[in-house]
């Protein structure tokens, strides 16, 4: 019993000294450039890093970044291992049933098919997509044969080695691959609009935090800084607010 009291006292002490300013922990995947990735210094980098830091500054919050596997990113938010998700997560109805989103910080975006052969069969052939993304659900419904991989990287590799006819992913994710492949990859078919844009995920009970970030995003939309930032990371062709 004595020990228990001692531990509790110690814990209380630790909490007391640090409670002065709450840190907001930002969860991200760190494997989805240019949204978020681990740069060569080993830190989280990308559009969402820069945006998130700016949002925290405007909302007067101290923020730290946490990496988490995509697969368990929502359960870990709910069990409180971090407070927000900024991981290129599209706002969908399914997800809105379990978590809340702030207003979007990237407009509803196009997903696209990329392939090596320009006449790849995207409706009846084999299409690679990342497991658990809206693109995977879309391919499953489209009639094409879905081939699922754990990371975005592997989906592109699957097309390169001929395993799949095409890859279906966020267009912004594919653009650098296509542009830098020296003509190996091309976009095939029409772009497909999916989801309601990318937003920041928060727990349903964290309404206060959500409002703070909503206001910060709004202020960045109002003064146009968000558009400049989107262009910086995604190029000039991308749709802005």
């Amino acid at each position: 019993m004595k020990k228990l009291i001692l531990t509790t006292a110690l814990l209380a002490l630790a909490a007391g000294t640090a409670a002065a300013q709450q840190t907001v922990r930002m969860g991200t995947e760190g494997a989805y450039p240019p949204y978020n990735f681990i740069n060569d210094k080993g830190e989280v980098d990308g559009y969402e890093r820069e945006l998130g830091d700016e949002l925290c500054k405007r909302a007067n919050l101290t923020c730290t970044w946490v990496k988490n596997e995509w697969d368990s990113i929502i359960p870990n938010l709910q069990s409180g291992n971090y407070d927000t998700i900024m991981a290129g997560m599209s706002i969908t109805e399914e997800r809105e049933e379990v978590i809340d989103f702030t207003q979007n910080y990237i407009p509803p975006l196009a997903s696209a098919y990329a392939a090596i052969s320009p006449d790849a069969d995207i409706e009846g052939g084999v299409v690679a997509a990342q497991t658990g993304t809206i693109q995977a659900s879309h391919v499953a419904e489209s009639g094409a044969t879905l081939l699922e991989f754990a990371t975005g990287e592997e989906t592109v590799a699957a097309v390169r080695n001929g395993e799949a006819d095409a890859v279906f992913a966020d267009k912004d994710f594919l653009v650098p691959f296509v542009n830098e492949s020296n003509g190996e990859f091309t976009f095939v078919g029409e772009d497909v609009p999916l989801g309601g844009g990318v937003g920041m995920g928060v727990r349903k009970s964290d309404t206060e935090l959500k409002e703070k970030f909503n206001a910060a995003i709004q202020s960045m939309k109002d003064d146009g800084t968000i558009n400049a930032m989107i262009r910086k990371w995604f190029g000039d062709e991308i749709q802005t607010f």
Partner: protein
Amino acid sequence: MFASCADPKSLEGLSWLLCYLTSGSHIAFYWSFVTVLVLLAVTAPVALAFGFAGAVAARSHLWPVSVAGKTYTAMVRGIPDIVFFLFFVIALDQGIEWVTHQIRCPDWTEPVRQGLEFRVCPSAKVPPGNAAQIWHQIYGFGLAVVTFAIVFGAFVSNVLTGAMNAVPRAQLETAESYGMTQGQVFRRILVPQMWIYALPGLSNLWMILIKATPLLFLLGVQDIVYWARELGGTKTSLYAYPHPDWRLYYFLALLVFYLGMTRLSEIVLGRLTRRLSFGQATAAGEAQRKAAA
């Protein structure tokens, strides 16, 4: 790391490679090898303790204790470790926070579970929400150690139960005839004598433990597999060091690392077996006696 690496795009050939291999993310990759080794070093004794407790419990004369000990070992044996890793860590994490919540926020009225959300009072967060990142990492690492130890403790418990039964009955009877109590027999004879019988099984477990570490990334620890995947993947010009898909080379490096670890363990454990066999009533001990005579 080196001053000449300031502008990676201008480098070529060997100097590019040197700078590439010493970039910040690669240093993190090298540290993750240390993480894995530390995890092995910490988990092994903890798992041994869990297993010992399990084996002693299974031998207990009190049936609830012995049933608990046996269920623990049987359950973990029946379930693939990967399934265990996938949900157990979140459960353990929530369990710890639930307990601190009960202790520290008795007046909290809102339910802890709101739908799928798990919400404890802020002061019950472990570690506290505003703690430095390093504490979160240490805590995550600690959870991984406990999860590994629980799974491997069950196997250790299997091995130790067998080893305890393998100690010649005559040795224990001799001790009893010297007037030792049950506790004394256990401490002075059974436990010291059982190790040689347990060693083959324990060596085998150590090898399995080494080979289970690639699953660490499931537990949220950034281990060597995480970094090999991350660093090996295609790097577009967004990165300082662009390169095509190099995952194959990174995984080959991991293969070499694991084979080296296995070989090293085999040599060390072989020596240990010879040491422990000395003077034992086993075939190996007998062979040593004959060789010396």
